[in-house]
């Protein structure tokens, strides 16, 4: 990597000066951004009132731009596969140190609360802020707490794989069903009327997809965390 330059004072001051210069230029350019341009967001909000859910961001993430989320899930899937490939350690019997008693009891009582909080965020993703990504990672942080505190605790790989695969396959199947029924990939084929806007069962496939995303993100994040922790402890 021939990017490195020696850390002399000339280097720093040269960089600072050029940064200041470019900063002012950028400021002038970004400042005269037109304020009242008619962004696509406005139209989407109107469209959301008709066939979206209460949380407009969830509608955009899952339904209007659902293909980005499918790609996003693929990125996370490949990342957890890569971390597993790199850091998977076959034989690591009793390598983690036994943590003290207080941490164990505290984590044993905290885990159900965190799990419930994660499930709440995931399930109510289309009504209040939150959703699949955030709920999944909250659950993964709960699993992380157990991984740290309990020596013999380990999420069995078969559970992670089955959850991950079922969620991913069902997400693509929902897309294909939408393709068959409405001739648009990821179309919202479950009819839902606007009166149900604030209710839990509203928005057709949107909450279903977000719960699937949550399961997948949760299993993959705990897989990454588990690999990182086991590998680190195997020093």
């Amino acid at each position: 990597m021939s990017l490195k330059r020696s850390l002399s004072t000339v280097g720093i001051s040269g960089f600072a000066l050029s940064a200041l210069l470019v900063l002012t230029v950028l400021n002038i350019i970004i400042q005269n951004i037109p304020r009242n341009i008619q962004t696509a967001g406005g139209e989407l909000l109107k469209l959301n009132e008709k066939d979206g859910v209460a949380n407009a961001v969830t509608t955009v993430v899952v339904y209007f731009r659902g293909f980005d989320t499918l790609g996003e899930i693929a990125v996370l899937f490949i990342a957890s596969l890569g971390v597993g490939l790199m850091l998977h350690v076959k034989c690591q019997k009793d390598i983690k140190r036994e943590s003290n008693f207080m941490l164990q009891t505290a984590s044993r009582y905290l885990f159900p609360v965190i799990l419930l909080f994660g499930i709440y965020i995931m399930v109510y993703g289309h009504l209040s802020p939150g959703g699949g990504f955030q709920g999944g990672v909250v659950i993964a942080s709960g699993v992380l707490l157990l991984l740290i505190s309990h020596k013999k605790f380990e999420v069995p790989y078969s559970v992670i794989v089955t959850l991950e695969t079922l969620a991913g396959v069902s997400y693509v199947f929902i897309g294909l069903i939408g393709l068959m029924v409405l001739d648009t990939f990821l179309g919202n084929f479950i009819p839902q009327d606007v009166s149900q806007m604030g209710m839990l069962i509203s928005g057709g496939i949107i909450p279903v997809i977000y719960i699937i995303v949550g399961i997948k993100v949760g299993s993959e994040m705990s897989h990454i965390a588990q690999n990182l922790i086991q590998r680190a402890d195997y020093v």
Partner: protein
Amino acid sequence: MSSVLFVALPLLFGFATPLLSRLGKDAVAYASVAMQLFLLCLSFYLLESVSLHVEIISIAPPLGISFVLNSVSLLFVTVFIFLTTLFSFYCLSHRETGSYENETKFLILLNMLLASSAGLVLSSDIFNIYVFFEIAGISAYILSAYRKTPSALEAGLKYLLTGAVASVFLVFAIVLIYLNIGSLNLAVIAQSFEALPFNVKLLISILLFIGFGFKVEIFPLNFWVTDVYQGSSSLVNALFSGIVAKAYLFVFFHIVYLFLPDGDFSAFLIYLGAVSMLVAEIAGLKQTNLKRLFAYSSLGQVALIFTAFALQNEDAVQGALFIVIAHSFAKLIIFLVLAFIEKEYESIHIDILKELNAPFLRAVLLIAMLSLLGIPLFAGFVGKLLVLKSLAVSGMLGVLVMIVIASLFEAVYYFKLAGYMFSKGERRGALHVGFIQKSVFALLVILLIVIGVAPFILSGFLGEASRVMLDSANYITVILGG
């Protein structure tokens, strides 16, 4: 049969593989090849009746994401699927040695790479292009670091670092585009990109150039390419130079044609491409490691395609499409032969060619090199001829001279290699080339010769494809009007 299947099916297969592998590794490998064959038939079926067709995903454009199916994007998708299918067939022949290419993880990454390069080529939404940019990137990082040797990991790290920096600049460009124009659909952006004040247009163009420049392997930003090629295995290099580089090249120029239809910065791009070809070929002269040498040759050919696309006229783009096809086939041959040599002889120094005792491989390698050089009877000739002709017509003699000199340098080190191959030195033990491997090489060589001898088969379709690619006004009306 919609074009979304090109992305949805490999993703479905990738997601299902961890559970499928419980049935047995062979089942997964055969299922992957079967799925790729199905996609190949689908692409040929669509190739017959290709009309400008917009595939809506979840809601209609300009608010939603949509795939645009025209002859250019379908051509690239067909080439990608054809290359992946041949690659899978070649890997199938390694079944008995149980080497790593048949592990389920490798198959998942291969399919994800196919899905993301197809998505890159088909998508018409700039943030969707960024997502596929990341998927292709992240599967390429893992493929290059797959063998977990120190040099492979170093290659993976360098690839990941440059990829991450490139994606930061690309997100910065997308942010400025949305703030100034208010939409993410390429057609809407293209319409109002002209009306932007010049400094905003310049800033967005610079950020897009840096973002894509790393991946398009253009001169100032391609310092990392040869290290990655040298670190990762030759099989994976075949995928990189065949599929990944072409997908990024097409997306970059698809955006350039849409945003700057009257070619504002095209002079800069043309000279940059010519300079980067010259630098790559000169650097290739003194290489002793075969992988590094062919990495520089890939850089040179990609720079030639870059220059041809930057010329922005129909002849040049038709020539570029010819070179894309010829270069993909030739590089697949070269890197598969290199993988074979690396596996059997465990060394990829130049002198190993002296001891290569496999007349079939030597002949196949020779034909691939001749086609890359542009020798008349082979596929590379037609493309290079069209590009040089359009350069002469548009009066860019300086660039013409640069490209001819670069091709001469390339000829020097290719003939040096040919000399090594056919020198009289003592030979190592005879290499046994499997039947499937021989048929894959034979098919590729036949294609190179057929395109070289009778280019008129493709020139009609490629001419129409280049017209469609350059005709951005029609692209915009189809998306917005349609």
